[in-house]
């Protein structure tokens, strides 16, 4: 029985939260890695694109709620998501038209483009603040739990409870759908193949008659869709606060680099690796050790939750030291 309790506790406090967080990171890292693969720079504005898109989702959600529209047991935000993606994509395409296109034409050094993305980050951050402020916002509605602790205890008779929140299930379902759609697009459609060809070898792709502007536009739209989805899922799961979306930039970059920048499979693997390390190392294992018959003196917590950023950083450093191209061999240049 104690073994069952330990397993349920691990599932409840480590596996489920880490899986949904990992899915959110993976979606964010996919956007970063796509932009890196095709536009060849690290987009510092990605976190604030997520924040901006999520802010629009929240505003639309409030609008829908005021009109009395709801999505049954699911959060209303999911209804607002496609519209928010479209609006954010328009803004992002404008930034490409007004900012990044110039640097592509003059073939600027990647670090100059990174600097430009810092400018875009500032603007997006300011727009988010203007739209919705800097406070913390909860916007999840609908049914809160799929399985609640009390129900689970009643069903199983275990001392340890297990809860599965609706937002966690939604995160996994939506992320799985998005990843499936992305890979289908990249591997099966003509445009997707054009994107991969362009990422592999720009000159050869141009020679084969691939329209570079179209590839770039598609990349921005897909990356924005992934970013807004990731931001909304993260906001539903935890809460929306503009500054947290800036801070999540580090784990997202770490995930993309761990998997190999430019490699979509790698970004997904990296997202889950970072998320599981983060949750597992900041979780106090005392209770589980007690179920297994040990008598620990401390909390058995490797690192305080305040330092969870340090975990992505350490993983990033180790990867840079051991294998700078990432676990899945991304682009080295």
């Amino acid at each position, binding site marked *: 029985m104690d073994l069952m309790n330990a397993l349920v506790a691990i599932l409840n406090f480590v596996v489920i939260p880490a899986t949904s967080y990992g899915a959110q990171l993976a979606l964010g890292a996919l956007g970063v890695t796509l932009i890196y693969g095709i536009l060849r*720079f*690290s987009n*510092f504005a990605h976190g604030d694109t997520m924040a901006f898109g999520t802010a629009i989702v929240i505003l639309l959600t409030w609008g829908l709620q005021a009109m009395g529209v709801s999505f049954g047991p699911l959060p209303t935000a999911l209804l607002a998501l496609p519209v928010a993606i479209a609006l954010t994509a328009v803004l992002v395409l404008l930034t490409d038209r*007004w*900012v990044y296109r*110039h*640097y592509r034409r*003059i073939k*600027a*050094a*990647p*670090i*100059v483009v*990174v*600097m*430009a993305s*810092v*400018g*875009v*980050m*500032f*603007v*997006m*951050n*300011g*727009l988010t*603040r*203007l739209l919705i*402020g*800097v406070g913390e916002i909860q916007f999840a509605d609908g049914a809160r739990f799929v399985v609640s602790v009390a129900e689970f205890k009643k069903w199983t008779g275990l001392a340890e409870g297990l809860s599965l929140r609706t937002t966690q299930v939604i995160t996994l379902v939506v992320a799985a759908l998005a990843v499936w759609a992305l890979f289908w697009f990249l591997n099966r459609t003509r445009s997707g193949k054009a994107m991969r060809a362009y990422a592999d070898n720009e000159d050869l792709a141009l020679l084969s008659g691939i329209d570079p502007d179209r590839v770039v536009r598609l990349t921005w739209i897909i990356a924005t869709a992934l970013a807004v989805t990731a931001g909304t899922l993260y906001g539903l799961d935890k809460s929306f606060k503009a500054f947290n979306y*800036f*801070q999540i*930039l*580090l784990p997202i*970059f*770490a995930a993309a*680099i761990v998997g190999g920048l430019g490699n979509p499979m790698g970004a997904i693997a990296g997202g889950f690796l970072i998320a599981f390390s983060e949750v597992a190392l900041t979780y106090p294992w005392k209770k589980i050790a007690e179920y297994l018959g040990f008598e620990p003196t*401390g909390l058995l917590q*490797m690192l*305080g939750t*305040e*330092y969870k*950023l*340090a975990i*992505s*950083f350490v993983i*990033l*450093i180790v990867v*840079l*030291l*051991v294998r*700078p191209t990432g676990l899945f061999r991304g682009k*080295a*240049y």
Partner: protein
Amino acid sequence: MSTTRQADTSSSPLRGLLLFLIIAVLFVLEGATRNAMFSGSWNSALSILNMGLISAVTALGVNMIWGYGGLFNAGVVGFVALGGLAPILISTPPVAGAWAAGGPRLILALAVGLATLVLAIVAANRLSRGLRFWGAALVLIVGYVLTRMAFDPAVTAIEANNPAEAGNIGGLGLPILMSWPVGMLLAAIAAWGVGKVALGLRSDYLAIATLGIGEIIVAILKNEGWLARGVLNMTGVPRPVPYELALQSNPDFVAAAARWGMDAATASGIYVKLCYTAIFVAVVLTLILLSQLALYSPWGRMMRAIRDNETAAAAMGKNVTRRHLQLFVLGSAVIGLSGAMMVTLDGLMAPGGYNPLRYTFLIWVMVIVGGSGNNWGAVLGALLIWFLWIKAEVWGPALMSLLTLPLSEGGLRRHLIESAPQMRYVAMGLVLLLVLRFAPRGLLPER
């Protein structure tokens, strides 16, 4: 770093003088005229100037890293915060009983931690290929557990010592100016660690690694109460200049103030701020002198050669990664100095205030606007952008209420006016983008 050339007419020597004059006029207007735009208070003008001078030191450090080396440090905030730790550790008075409570154990923990790192590096270098990774990992895990076993009780003991007023390890009680070089040293050590790992790889890896270390240093300062009381803040950091209250009770000073036609309170504030201004100006000028000398020495020429064409410089036998590391450490040390200066000016260490947008990216705007690679440009950009940043908080709502006059009194107008201070983020982003696009060499281009 320039990607396109501006017209050569822009680099006349008069241009710099004129731009500095414009900034001087702005500060004089802020001090002397009272209207919708300026406060008419010399105290306000001087405090903006002092903070602007500190930003100028930070910008000089960033300019070394970016302007001479083309490296992107995205964690300036961390190095500023780390430099700010020095005045606390060096100059605040010692805390009674703190050292006895956990000092030796703390030193032991730090020594074990350091030994772990060294041993892991040795393991990674000496072991055979297959064992290398796992050997180093094992050393790190065992070392981490041992460090924590010494560290945790020491921290608990120190934080339990007079927690209401102290609870930290306390300082050495040395003069405050002595802490400034220590701030440089702390930042330099951190920069060496990051640079050693991230330099020599792709250029954006350094940006991402520094972004991380910046956030982590701030997190450490917020949460390690034994170090500088964390979010409880450290106040009462000693000053290199007299206190206002001491001046106000000095009859000579009060008489002198009366002769100038000012009341003692205002005069003492201005006097103290002027003292700071003098110190900061001396620091800025010394830094400019030193970095100009370095820039026009063979070393500086080598640095610019490396920046402009790494491949060619490497072919000439220059070790690009080593030189980059050197530059990164030097620049970060200057950034650390500005952090120590800021804590000295504020008399306060408040880790909650270290916001990356303000301390990393705003500094970047200053450097880019001022002119990458030009030290005077960095100072100019710092003073100008800092002035605008502070005043925009006042001007934004005023402008917005003017613009929204046609709108009826209501929720929308109120929302727009209330959120107008946030406009300055948009404005700064636009300034950065416009300068980067249309005048990539900045207001004062590198010659």
